[in-house]
């Protein structure tokens, strides 16, 4: 098979890989992208995007059942789960088609298959592309970016079977709605599914090993979220583990141990969302200098693996496992390859969003982590109940918390829960990236009436100057 030569080969077409490919094309590189399944990766096909479509429908369902507060009357509200799933799949398909178009527009050559590092020849990396065991193409390039992503971590004894025990993928395409559901893991993925199914009327129990839900968030936000979830009727067990599951024909009985106490619950389905493992197998890492630690490839600040000409980005190189982090790493890797001046990723500037109800969003250090890092802090809080727009919208549940370094006024972190916080957080991310202090944030004029006014008030509160609370 004739070798095809490129300047850069990107392995994986997810939000890390396809963004890297487009950036490289902008920099006049001749780029190949190898994708084994869907352009857009998990994010676009089986993650961020289709779940947002599902969560939108469950939000609407929630609203339809609370219309009375707004002066409406609606009776016999019902839904068709097949249609809800179908909409979500169409949204994913539309966007995957969009990525295909973008790659074509940027003249990126896309190969359908699995790629494997295959040594070096004449200073070029060799890559073998196969599909279903048959060779598709032999590629060479000076540089390779690996962006193969990650997959759900399996829990021993609770391996996904596609019927009773679901992974995220099964949970996204239910044929019918279970009556009851056990969600194992209360990170962003677990909580989003819990929220989705609960809002469609499913009896949901969440089990979390740590002492609080959404364990990466600020403790105050976790506590607020738990209170809110429980008020809605979600059952939550923290510091808890699933000791045993017994599968019946169409139900699962799980033994849950919560701080020494054991209980047994029977549910129709179980969703396991206890983290992810990197896709580091079968890509030819053996015999290279590339190191794998805890299923993730080890890279330096510029995503270089240590193996000449090989970079790695996104979920396969470690947390936070977020699409926008992968995309940004893709840009850093490509610009490094192009010899441009790049900046190392600052993890404290990566926002995280969870689209449960109420939404949760954050950036930077939690109050506890800021203190642990030696900062003397000033903390501001502002509740949704003090905001005119929130009251007008009927969304009075929420909190915006800000953490500043007492000495320098650096915004160390922002932690939010409530309506639309996933859109609001970007204001703080920009502020952090531009290294503003509390002074500039205080001097900034926030439009009235908006939810964003609470971002202002939270900053003011950190310095004892909140106006409306």
């Amino acid at each position, binding site marked *: 098979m004739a070798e095809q030569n490129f300047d850069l080969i990107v392995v994986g077409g997810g939000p890390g890989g396809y963004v890297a490919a487009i950036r490289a094309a902008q920099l006049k590189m001749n780029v190949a992208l190898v994708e084994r399944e869907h352009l857009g990766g998990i994010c676009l096909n089986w993650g961020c995007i289709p779940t947002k479509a599902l969560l939108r429908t469950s939000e609407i369902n929630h609203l339809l059942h609370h219309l009375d507060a707004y002066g409406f009357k609606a009776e016999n509200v019902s839904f068709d789960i097949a249609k809800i799933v179908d909409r979500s799949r169409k949204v994913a398909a539309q966007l995957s088609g969009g990525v295909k178009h973008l790659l074509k527009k940027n003249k990126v050559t896309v190969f359908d298959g699995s790629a494997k590092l295959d040594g070096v020849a004449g200073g070029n990396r060799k890559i073998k592309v196969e599909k279903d065991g048959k060779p598709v193409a032999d590629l060479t390039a000076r540089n390779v970016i690996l962006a193969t992503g990650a997959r759900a971590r399996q829990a021993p004894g609770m391996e996904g079977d596609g019927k009773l025990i679901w992974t995220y993928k099964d949970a996204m395409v239910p044929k019918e709605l279970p009556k009851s559901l056990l969600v194992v893991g209360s990170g962003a993925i677990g909580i989003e599914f819990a929220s989705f199914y609960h809002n469609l009327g499913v009896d949901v129990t969440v089990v979390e090993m740590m002492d609080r839900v959404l364990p990466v968030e600020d403790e105050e936000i976790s506590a607020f979220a738990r209170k809110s979830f429980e008020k809605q009727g979600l059952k939550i067990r923290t510091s808890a583990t699933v000791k045993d599951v017994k599968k019946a024909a169409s139900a699962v009985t799980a033994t849950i141990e919560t701080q020494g106490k054991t209980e047994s619950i029977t549910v129709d389905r179980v969703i396991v969302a206890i983290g992810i493992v990197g896709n580091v197998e079968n890509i030819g890492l053996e015999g290279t200098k590339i190191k794998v630690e805890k299923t993730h490839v080890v890279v330096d600040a510029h995503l270089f693996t240590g193996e000449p000409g090989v970079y790695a980005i996104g979920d396969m190189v470690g947390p936070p496992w977020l699409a926008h982090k992968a995309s940004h790493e893709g840009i850093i890797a490509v610009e490094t390859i192009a010899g441009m001046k790049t900046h190392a990723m600052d993890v404290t500037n990566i926002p995280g969003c969870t689209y449960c109800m109420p939404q949760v969003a954050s950036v930077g250090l939690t109050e506890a982590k800021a203190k642990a*890092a030696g900062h003397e802090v000033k903390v501001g809080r502002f509740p949704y109940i003090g905001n005119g727009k929130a009251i007008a919208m009927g969304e009075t549940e929420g909190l915006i918390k800000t953490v500043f370094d007492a*000495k320098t006024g*650096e915004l160390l972190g922002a932690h939010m829960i409530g309506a639309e916080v996933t859109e609001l957080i970007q204001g703080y991310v920009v502020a952090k990236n*531009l*290294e*503003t202090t509390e002074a500039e944030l205080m001097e900034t004029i926030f439009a009235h009436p908006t939810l964003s006014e609470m971002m202002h008030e939270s900053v003011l509160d950190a310095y004892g100057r909140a106006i409306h609370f």
Partner: protein
Amino acid sequence: MPIDILMPALSPTMTEGNLAKWVKQEGDAVKAGDVICEIETDKATMEVEAVDEGTLAKIIVAEGTQGVKVNEVIALLLEEGESADALGKAPAPKSAPAPENPKTEPAKAEAPKAEAAPAPKPAAAPDAKGAPADHGDRVFATPLARRMAEQAGVDLAGVKGSGPNGRIVKSDIEAAAGKPKQAAAPAVAEAPKAAPTVAAAPAAAALTKDRVVALAGNVPYTEIPNTSMRKVIAKRLTEAKQTVPHFYLTVDCEIDQLLKIRAELNSRGEGLKISVNDFVIRASALALKKVPAANASWSDDVILQWSQADIAVAVAIDGGLITPIIKQAEAKGLATISSEMRDLGARAKAGKLKLEEFQGGTFSISNLGMFGIKEFSAVINPPHGAILAVGAGEQRPVVKNGALAIATVMSCTLSVDHRVVDGAVGAAFLKAFKGLIEDPLSMLL
């Protein structure tokens, strides 16, 4: 009015250069920061950036022209909305296709002007208008970087930014203040107090160990850790050499009289042990009082002319040097200066100086005479406006009344910050200083 684009001075010593290439052509739109042409000097070819925005209306000095004087008009720029009619009022532009003429003629025509100009405004930078690489005094730094710099006593002007478009960001201040990232909080709080003199590192490309070893060609070596004093010295002096425009004036002083009086004073049995350096301190202080313009420091807002002469004297100590200060030296007699200096020197070597005893000052003295150095130039210790480098007193042949004679001569070189002290002022100071040193009785008054 069209804006004159002038031949820039690409180095302080440049008087003329060659116009190597026009990157922009007549009629091209020009934005601030665009490269408009390339200038060749004896040292390098450099790109000239536009400072103003507009349309390059007229090229006056054609490509390939050699020996173009600094500050000569090389092209005209029309601002937005200005019509080419405005060019009519412009000084006779020379047409581009005649490169031979501008090559010689303007050079001659400009010559008197070029000579006349430096006199009233010595070493003045070319007029900002049309001059290249003049980014003004604005320092681009993030709000957080500004506040941290203020707290750490770091001067932003000396910090090289690593952010977008050279913006100074948090990590640059951390590097400049010598603070390790996320260091323990108490250490951070101490830093500004312990070392307000740790001014910014004008960080060029980082001189990592590996890079230096590679530059030296992998010669075997021993590592000696950088002490914090070493780092302060490196930062301060790099900053001084990079940001302070130094010039140097040297004067020879005969010290036979001084040595004689010194011997007399020290033999009086009053326990006096006055050194030559004590005389130098006293003479410097009195000369500064006589020529107060030399006792001054530059700030961006105003020149600060100090009301007293606080004289910092460099003392070599283990692993570096330190500069204890004789405060208000103009008001102190030789005996006082001598005993203070002996005390400060002893405690400096023992590492027991208090902060206020070695931080500050208005003028410095560095004396390497005891090592037999004939003369040398010292690096100014900001914010001081000048430093006096004192060489060894040694017997040299001198001409007196038309005949050769022998005298003990000490050469002193004054390094001067040209932003505050001009040549004539520096010379006046040295004249006063020499007068005192050579007539030491006048110092005893």
